[in-house]
């Protein structure tokens, strides 16, 4: 145990914040991520992370908390994407790629302006790759608040969401407002992206959203089990990442240690690869990340 935790870990203030924010973000992201993967909306998830990049860097420039920027931009982006019906567009990869390119360019501008006008350092690394150790404890209430609301919404729409993900037509026939459920889900997705952005940076946030979810879906037999396993995987990866990052300050005497996000992403990636080992795979092949919802099997309705 002494080897795992370098001195001062448990008493360090920043570590407390990191562990709390990290855990909550990972939890929510994993939950939302399971639905995202099941509904085949990974594309939307990716797109929102780019939007979050712009939001975070813009917020920073205009002196708002980046968390607000991530969340706000995400929500606006989700709304816009839903309005335009972007996922069903022919040539959507190109169109969204170009529009998001503009958004990313804008992010570059904000980051540059922030570095020169406000003379803040390390903005890029903070927004893009996260710096969970430098988070203020004042972010915790907002993070926890948003998480509770998001999980609440998910709990509320759980059954309609499930049914409309598997078969929108059947759901509609049963009187479910498929459109409304879809929009609500997109909003939870936006919040999840925002939270994972604050934890590991907007550019890497997809890992926390998709990774544990995809891994869980590979090793479990049904959705309910995945919804339990995914958050566990996410939180474990996050906590372990925090520990390793803290320790890494002591490994390399000269530098500032390796980024937390690097550890978290690597752990998630390794976790997914390991889940591919034949012994662990409970379900037969299922290209989950891009599968249309209808292909998902074994979902209890």
């Amino acid at each position: 145990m002494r080897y795992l935790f370098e001195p001062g870990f448990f008493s360090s203030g920043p570590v407390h914040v990191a562990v709390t924010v990290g855990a909550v973000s990972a939890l929510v992201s994993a939950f939302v991520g399971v639905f995202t993967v099941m509904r085949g909306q990974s594309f939307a998830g990716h797109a929102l992370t780019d939007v979050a990049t712009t939001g975070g860097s813009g917020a920073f420039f205009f002196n708002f908390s980046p968390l607000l920027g991530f969340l706000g931009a995400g929500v606006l982006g989700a709304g816009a994407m839903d309005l335009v019906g972007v996922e069903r567009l022919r040539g959507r990869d190109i169109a969204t790629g170009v529009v998001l390119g503009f958004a990313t360019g804008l992010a570059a501008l904000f980051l540059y302006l922030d570095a020169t006008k406000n003379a803040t350092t390390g903005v890029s690394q903070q927004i893009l790759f996260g710096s969970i150790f430098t988070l203020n404890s004042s972010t915790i209430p907002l993070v926890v608040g948003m998480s509770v609301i998001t999980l609440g919404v998910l709990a509320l729409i759980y059954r309609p969401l499930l049914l409309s993900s598997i078969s929108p037509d059947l759901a509609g026939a049963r009187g479910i407002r498929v459109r409304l459920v879809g929009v609500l889900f997109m909003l939870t997705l936006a919040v999840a992206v925002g939270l994972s952005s604050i934890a590991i940076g907007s550019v890497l946030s997809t890992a926390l959203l998709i990774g544990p979810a995809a891994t869980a879906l590979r090793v479990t037999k049904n959705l309910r089990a995945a919804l339990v396993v995914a958050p566990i995987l996410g939180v474990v990866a996050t906590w372990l990442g925090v520990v390793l990052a803290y320790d890494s300050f002591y490994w390399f005497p000269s530098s500032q240690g390796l980024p937390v996000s690097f550890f978290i992403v690597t752990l998630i990636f390794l976790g997914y690869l390991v889940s591919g080992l034949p012994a662990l795979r409970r379900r037969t092949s299922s290209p989950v990340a891009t599968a249309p919802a209808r292909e998902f099997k074994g979902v209890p309705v």
Partner: protein
Amino acid sequence: MFTSFMVNAWLIGSIVAVVAGIVGFFVVMRSSAFAAHAIPNGAFAGAAGANLVGINPLVGLGVFSLAAALGIATLSRRGRADAVTALALVMMLALGAAFLSQSTEYEPAIFSLLFGEILGVSTGQLWPVIALGAVCVVAVGVLYRPLLLTSIAPEIAAARGLRPERLEIIFLVVLACATTMTVPVVGALLIFTLMIGPPAAARCFSDRAPVAMGLSVLIGLLTIWGALACAYVTNWPVGFYVGSYSAAWFVIGRLFRAWRRAQGSRRARSGDLARENVLAGA
């Protein structure tokens, strides 16, 4: 802005635009959006690694781009991409961030590798860039027709004895070369727009493939020149202008296409009307 140190920037920028226009033409036609994201991410990690180890960044860029390209080729042979590819994409970026964190210039290096820099390529790199560019252009030129057929109708191409899988690998390698020379100038996160925007716009202006490719190069040049000029004057990042101008051209292209289609249907309707009148009169 035409001082000696900028001349390099104009030269390299132009070469980059030409190559991006030509290679991007096929990226768009083959819908290789995924490869166009994955290879730059690998390039970023490679450049960061080179930065850390102290070798020529082009080498790092090249090696990792190539590895990413070949990785995609093998993955796609196993069937449609799944979560592993999305995670691998992100893993590359995280790796790059880790490499950069060990160097002293963490922040500026992140910025210039992700968003580009006017003088991203130094004078010493001019010849390697020209060589890479030449390889890309010659490869596409020689393989133009096979690439065209395999991109549009791979089954027909296979029946003719062309080998779509082989061409895909060759194309990915070309894309890796194009990425290697473009990332220093435009940045890993924005190279996508330069490779996609101008060609996607160009094909809105012409129905003919060679013309569309030429326009793709032209629009790419205009984009880069505009971006370099504005970046020089305002000191704002090149990537911001590249992203904005690419998007603008794309929008202009689509509006033009929509307008042309409206014209076409109006003419068709008036043609039908004329025909009906003739029949009615007869």
